């Protein structure tokens, strides 16, 4: 028996818990199955996929993290650009990057195809790590060390844009990452890197 025809503005007399038509049941079932796919893709990508925002996460004193970054920069410094050290750590090593208003410290020089563990944290307020034009975006929170294994897949001269509001000079906060080939060539052909894509 169907409920008496009524709109959403009318009170419903009697019991409204009545069986739905098959068409509705089918749609609910299909929608539910799709929701299960939406869920399953996430664990599946941890297992089979190459891009996961997991990493190793620990608490850290902001000043201690900056000191660790400075020690790292002094250890592997190869050059200076606009007053910022250019640092070339060996593949497989721990790499440190500190965000502070309004600077990314230091400049990193990595080798294509090699894996590093990149530690990210902030000295003062929240910042946003946005690797351009690769389009990797991560939240940087002061007091938290976010350590992710990264493996570049193209050579080039990349930028780090701050994409979390951090103060009045936020839009001037740009850093640099250089990826060379095995021979150390800094062939900076960003055209070969992806220039962004479809939504």
């Amino acid at each position, binding site marked *: 028996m*169907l*409920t008496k*025809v*009524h*709109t*959403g*503005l009318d*009170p*419903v*007399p009697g019991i409204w818990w*009545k069986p739905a*038509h*098959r*068409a*509705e049941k*089918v*749609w*609910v079932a299909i*929608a*539910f199955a*799709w929701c*299960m796919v*939406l*869920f399953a893709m996430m664990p599946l*990508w941890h297992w089979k*996929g*190459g*891009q*996961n*925002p*997991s990493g190793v*996460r620990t608490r850290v004193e902001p000043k201690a993290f900056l000191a660790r970054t400075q020690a790292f920069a002094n250890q592997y410094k190869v050059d200076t650009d*606009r007053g*910022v050290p250019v640092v070339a750590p060996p593949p497989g090593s721990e790499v440190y990057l500190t965000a502070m208003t309004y600077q990314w410290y230091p400049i990193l020089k990595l080798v294509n195809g090699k894996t590093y563990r990149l530690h990210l*944290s902030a000295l003062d307020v*929240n910042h*946003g790590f946005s*690797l351009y*034009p*690769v*389009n*990797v975006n*991560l*939240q940087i*929170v002061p007091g938290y*060390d*976010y350590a*992710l294994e*990264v*493996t570049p897949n193209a050579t080039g001269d990349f930028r780090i*844009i701050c*994409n979390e*509001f951090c103060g*009045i000079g936020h*839009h001037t906060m*740009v*850093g640099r990452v250089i990826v060379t080939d095995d021979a150390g060539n800094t062939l900076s052909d960003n055209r070969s890197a992806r220039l*962004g894509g*479809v*939504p």
Partner: protein
Amino acid sequence: MPSAFRTCPATGRRIHLGAELLVKANAVVAVVSLLIGAIAALLLVLTRWQAVHLLPAEWYYRILGVHGMNMLIFFIIYFEMAVLWFCCTALLNSRPAAPRLGWVSFGLMFAGAALVEWMQWSGRADVLFTSYPPLKADPLFYLGVILFAVGALTVVGLFFATLVIAKREKTYEGSVPLVVYGAITAAIIAVITLLHGALIYIPTFLWSLGIIPEVDPEIYRMIWWGLGHSSQQINVAAMVAVWYMLAGLTVGGVVLNEKVSRSAFVLYVLFISMASAHHLLVDPGFGPAWKIVNTSYFMYMAVLASMIHGFTVPAGMELGMRLRGYTDGLFGWLRRAPWGDPGFSGMVLSVIIFGFVGGITGVTIGTEQINIIAHNTLRIPGHFHATVVSGTAMAFMAATYYLLPLVFRRKVAFWGAARWQPYLFSLGMLLLSMGMTFAGSFGVPRRHWDISFSQAPFDVQFNPAVDLVLAVMGIGGIMAVTGALLFIAIAVKSVFFGEPVGEWKTGTYVPGIPPGITNPPVHAANVDEINERLHGGRGFPGPTPGTMVLVFVFLGAFMVYYFTNWKLLSQLWRLG
């Protein structure tokens, strides 16, 4: 003593005059907030459109905060307060509980909003909408938010008290209408949301006074988004309730099955409590298990709920039209619908853009790994302008075209313009959302004054296509703001200088009064018989084959967009 009630000549409902005054006051302040927010929007869009770049940096960030608070908090919540008062009194023929306390809470909200405006405009709260510590604002800013939230929470309490009164005084028979049921879910979510707000703004207020040494920035983000995202779920529930209301008023849209629609509302309540997780997917404070579980609870039941409403609302309209004799073909009911009624067109545009743009992009970028290519880019505002603005705000505007004659008893001013306002506003918002979404997919950041990076130490060259999509965003934004200002002009003129609705003959067309009121979509006396016939013997597509086609088109678009994003993600550096 004069009666506290009047009888609505259009709907025959008993309307309490005191409650009506509360609806009016909240709606008027909502429109004022909308005006401030819309002017801010115009300034922002003309700044982000890099070719124009209007505001200086300091004012860009300041106005961005003003825009966020006015649109997402003041406009939306004031309007929701009006919706709550309307649903628990007018729709249930009831008197309001403690109307004096209703005015006290209205005053509290007003004082809170005024404090926030003062702090923001005077540059003492340049912390944007989210106010993430350790960025610090003047204590009065946090105090303003707290006052506003306490006021809103009190109104929600009065809403529940009014429901009890209506039940006890038997002002209606049976169960509350579906629209009120939707409003109840919105109110329950509002309680959860506002408690999160208290939980985080009170310590932050104390911290700004120097009483507490620090607020953990990651814990702040988690609890703050319990307010920030859950409040969007209030909007969704209220918006869906408005969809059902307008479907009934404009085309005689029916409720296909109360069990299905009400269960979907319950899913909203049960599955949103940690919706904040969507905002922390690439944060350092939480592990993958926490992120996956709290975005989906293994099942994405809140998404399921929206997909159910996405079917039942159009299907209810289709069946309502078919029951009234518009039975030709798959889409005859759509062709014959009242597209010149802004209450109808606005509601339909809200359903379409909310679902196809807002919904699909939201679920996709809210996926743990896909968030890597979306977090804090312009894709995020691209998504939520399609949900909150094209969806919720458009639905509220459409509802206003009916509230003006029904509650304010005024004709809709500038009727000719009102008829195309929804199209202008929606098209503008659609262009804005698409422009932002595409720009974001090229890596253009949100909340950023200067993407030419003229003052940065290293140059950044965006893909030339970015100029084009930002122009689309700019033009769309200007169209949408024009549509919003037009709406405000219509609302203000109608309320303060409008022509009284007067008398009309049922079945006639009266300029200034939506046709759903002067020529209501009534069903024939033997409608239940016709309904049985439409339900029987049609096999799988059921009584609403047109909607069945539409939802499968939706599902197809969803799948294509979702898997395209996985494909793009797979091309990134390896990361883990």
